[in-house]
C-alpha cells in the first residue's frame, strides 16, 4: 500500500486522477448532507422594490405560440406592488418542445433602450429557456433580484430554467450515475474474467462457444440496442440498467482476458510451477490470477467510464427514466428546454458537462497510473 502511494506520487497524472476521485467521492457521498436538493420551482418571481416598472419582452416565436402573450408584447406588464415578489407571467413550462429558434427577439434592443432612458426599471424577457431581468445602467434599484439570477452568491452556478439552484443539482445528481456505472462495470468485468479464464483454461468446444458468443455481441450495434432495450424494459431501477449495459460490453475485455491467460499459461514461472507439480488450483490462484489483477482492475475502471457514456447517452436522448435528477437529466432538460441555445442559461448545460468530463478524466488518469505502476516496462521513473 505504501508502495502504491509512493508510486502514485511519482505519476503526476495518476495523482491528479486519484485526487479527482476522492473529490467526487466526497461530492456525491457527503455533499448532499450539506447542500440539499433545491426542488422549489421559482418561475417568474421578481423581487423588486415597490413601484418598479417592469416590461415584458418576448421573442416572436413565443408570442405566436402563446397568443395571450402577444397582446402583452412591449407593454409594461405590471408594477411591483408588494415587495417579496409577484408572479408576473404564468409558468408555461412543459408546453414548449420546439427549439428551432432562439432568442434575439426584436423586443430586446427596444427594451434595453428604454431601460437606458429610464422609461422602465427592468424588463421580463420571457422565453422557455431563459428569464433575464436586466436593470438599467445606473439603476435606482440595485437590489432588484430575480429567480434566474446570474452567477452570484447564493447561487454559485446560477439557476436553471425553473429558478432552481444548479449547484444543488450537481451535488445531488451524481450518486445514482456513479453507482450505476460502478455496478455495470463490475458486472461486465466479472462476466469477462470468468468467461475469458474459462475459455482459455478449458479450451475446446467451450472456448469456441464463448468466443463465438463474444464475437456475436461485438457485432451488435451496442448503443442502438440499448435504446431498444430501454424501451423494452422500463428502466426504473439502476440494477436493471447496470445489468443491461454490463451484458453488452463484456466481450472486448473477455477476449483480452482470454489472450492474457493463454499467454500467462506459457510463461516460465507457470511452466516451473507445473514442473514442480503444484496442481492446477495452485497455478490458477497463486501464479496466474495475481499477475492479472492490475490488468483486471484497470479494465474495470475503463468499463465504468464506458458505462457512464452509455448511461448518460440514454438519459440525454430521453430513453432512461428521469425520476432521479442526475447530471444526465440536466443535459436532457438543457436540450429539450432550449437552454442549450441561449447564452444566459449556459450554466445549466456547462455545469453537468464539466462534472461528467472531470469524473471521466479522473477515472482514466487513475487507470493509466495503475497501468504504469503494474507494468514495469511502462514505468517512467
Amino acid at each position, binding site marked *: 500500500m505504501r508502495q502504491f502511494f509512493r508510486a502514485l506520487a511519482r505519476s503526476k*497524472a495518476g495523482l491528479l486522477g486519484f485526487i479527482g476521485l476522492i473529490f467526487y467521492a466526497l461530492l456525491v457521498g457527503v455533499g448532499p448532507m450539506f447542500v440539499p436538493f433545491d426542488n422549489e420551482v421559482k418561475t417568474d418571481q421578481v423581487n423588486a422594490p415597490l413601484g418598479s416598472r417592469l416590461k415584458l419582452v418576448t421573442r416572436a416565436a413565443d408570442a405566436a405560440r402563446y397568443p395571450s402573450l402577444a397582446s402583452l408584447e412591449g407593454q409594461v406588464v405590471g408594477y411591483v406592488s408588494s415587495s417579496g415578489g409577484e408572479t408576473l407571467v404564468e409558468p408555461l413550462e412543459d408546453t414548449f418542445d420546439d427549439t*428551432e*429558434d*432562439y432568442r434575439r427577439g426584436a423586443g430586446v434592443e427596444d427594451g434595453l433602450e428604454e431601460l437606458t432612458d429610464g422609461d422602465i426599471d427592468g424588463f421580463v424577457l420571457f422565453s422557455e429557456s431563459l428569464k433575464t431581468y436586466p436593470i438599467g445602467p445606473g439603476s435606482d434599484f440595485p437590489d432588484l433580484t430575480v429567480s434566474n439570477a446570474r452567477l452570484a452568491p447564493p447561487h454559485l452556478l446560477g439557476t436553471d430554467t425553473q429558478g432552481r439552484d444548479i449547484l444543488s443539482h450537481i451535488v445531488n445528481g451524481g450518486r445514482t450515475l456513479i453507482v450505476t456505472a460502478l455496478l455495470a462495470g463490475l458486472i461486465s468485468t466479472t462476466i469477462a474474467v470468468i468467461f475469458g479464464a474459462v475459455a482459455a483454461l478449458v479450451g475446446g468446444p467451450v472456448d469456441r462457444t464463448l468466443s463465438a458468443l463474444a*464475437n*456475436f455481441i*461485438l*457485432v*451488435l*450495434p*451496442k*448503443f*442502438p*440496442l440499448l*435504446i*431498444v*432495450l430501454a*424501451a*423494452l424494459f422500463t428502466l426504473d431501477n439502476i440494477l436493471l440498467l447496470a445489468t443491461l449495459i454490463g451484458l453488452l460490453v463484456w466481450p*472486448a475485455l473477455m*477476449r483480452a482476458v482470454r*489472450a492474457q491467460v493463454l499467454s500467462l499459461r506459457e510463461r516460465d514461472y507457470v511452466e516451473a510451477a507445473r514442473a514442480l507439480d503444484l496442481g492446477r488450483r495452485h497455478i490458477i490462484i497463486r501464479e496466474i490470477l495475481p499477475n492479472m489483477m492490475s490488468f483486471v482492475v484497470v479494465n474495470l475502471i475503463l468499463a465504468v*467510464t464506458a458505462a*457512464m*457514456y452509455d448511461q*448518460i*447517452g440514454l438519459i*440525454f*436522448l430521453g430513453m432512461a427514466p428521469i425520476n432521479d435528477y442526475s447530471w444526465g437529466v440536466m*443535459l436532457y432538460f438543457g*436540450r429539450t428546454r432550449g437552454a*442549450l*441555445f*441561449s*447564452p444566459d442559461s*449556459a450554466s445549466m*448545460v*456547462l455545469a453537468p*458537462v464539466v462534472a*461528467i*468530463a472531470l469524473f*471521466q*478524466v479522473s*477515472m*482514466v*488518469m487513475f487507470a*493509466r497510473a495503475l497501468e504504469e505502476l503494474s507494468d514495469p516496462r*511502462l514505468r*517512467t521513473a
Partner: protein
Amino acid sequence: MQTSKTLTGPPPLESGWLSRVVSSYAVRTLLQALLTIWAVVTFTFFLIRLMPGNPIDVYVGFLMNQSNLTYGEALQQAASQFSFDPNASVFQQYLGYLGDLVRGDLGTSITSTGTQVVDQIARFLPWTLFCVGLGLLISFVLGMTIGMLIAYYRNSVLDTAVSFFASVLGAVPDYIWGLLILVVFGVQLGWFNIGELRGTYDPGLTPGFTPAFIWSVVRHAFLPVLVYVIGTLGSWILNMRSSTTSVLGEDYVNVARARGLTPGRIATTYVGRNAALPLFTLLAVNIGLVIGGSVIIEELFVYKGIGSFLFFSISQRDYTSMQGVFLVIAVSVVVANILADLLYSSLDPRVRIEGER
C-alpha cells in the same frame, strides 16, 4: 493476432473439391459473415417486436392528440394507413421478413406509408458514412502520426503533455465534447450559428456538384466530423504510441539502423508499417462503435443521418425501418472487419491468408 489465427484455420484434410471450396478463405469468410448477419437480424427482429407498444398504438395516440378523434376512430384510420398486421404471429412475420430479405426487399416503412425502407436508408446512410468515414480517417491518420512522433521522443516533456492530452480526449464522451463546443463556441462566443447548421445542407439548395452545395455540405458536416475526430483521436495516439514503442525495441529495427538506412526510411517502412498493424483491427471495431454512437451526435446536431433516423424509427416503433437500420449497421461492421483482416494480411506477410499463396 487473434483474428489472424481464426483466419488460417485448420489445414485441409482431404483433397476433394468440396472441402477445398469450403476451406477456401473467401467462402469461409462469406459463410461466417452471412451467419453473423442472420444471427443479428434474428436477434433484433424478436427483440424489436417485444418492445411495448406497436406502431399503430403510437400513431393512434398521435391521432387522438392531434385531431381529437376517439380511440375507435383513430384506430380505424391508423389501421387503414399502415401496411402492418398486428394480428399475424411474430413467427409468421419473421419468416415473411427473411423471405423478403433474401430477395433484397427490406419492406416498406410502417409509419411513413408507401416509403421503401431501402429508399429511406439510401437517403440517410450516405450522410452518416460520409461524416463517420471522414472523421475516422482524419483521426486515424492524425493519431498515427502524433502517436509515432511521441513514441520517438518518449518520456520527453512533449510525450508527457501529448499523452495527457490524448487521455483527456479519449476519457470524455464524444457527445460531451459536442455539447461543450456548441455551448462555448456556438452560443457564448458566437463563432457559428447553430440554427443554420442543422440538417445536412442548407434548405433550398438542390443537391449537385455546385460550389454552393458542396460548401453547404462541408459546413453542416463540420461539427459532427470534428466531434468524431475528437472522440477517437486520443485512443489512436495512445495505441500508436505503445505499438511504436514496442516495435522500436525489435531486432529488425536495430539491424536496419546498423545497415545505415536513413532514419526516414526506417520510420516509414520498418517502424511505421509494423506499428500500424494492430491499429487496423481496432479501426474495424471503431467503425461499428462510432456508427452506433452517431445516434447521440446526430440528435445533438440535428444532423439527418442514419443515427437520427434510427432514433426516430425507434420512437415511432417503425419495426421495418428499425430492422433495416440494424441490418445496415451489422453489415457495415462485418464488412469493416473483413476489410481490416484483408488489409492486415496484405500489410503483414506473416499472416498471409491461406489460398493466396
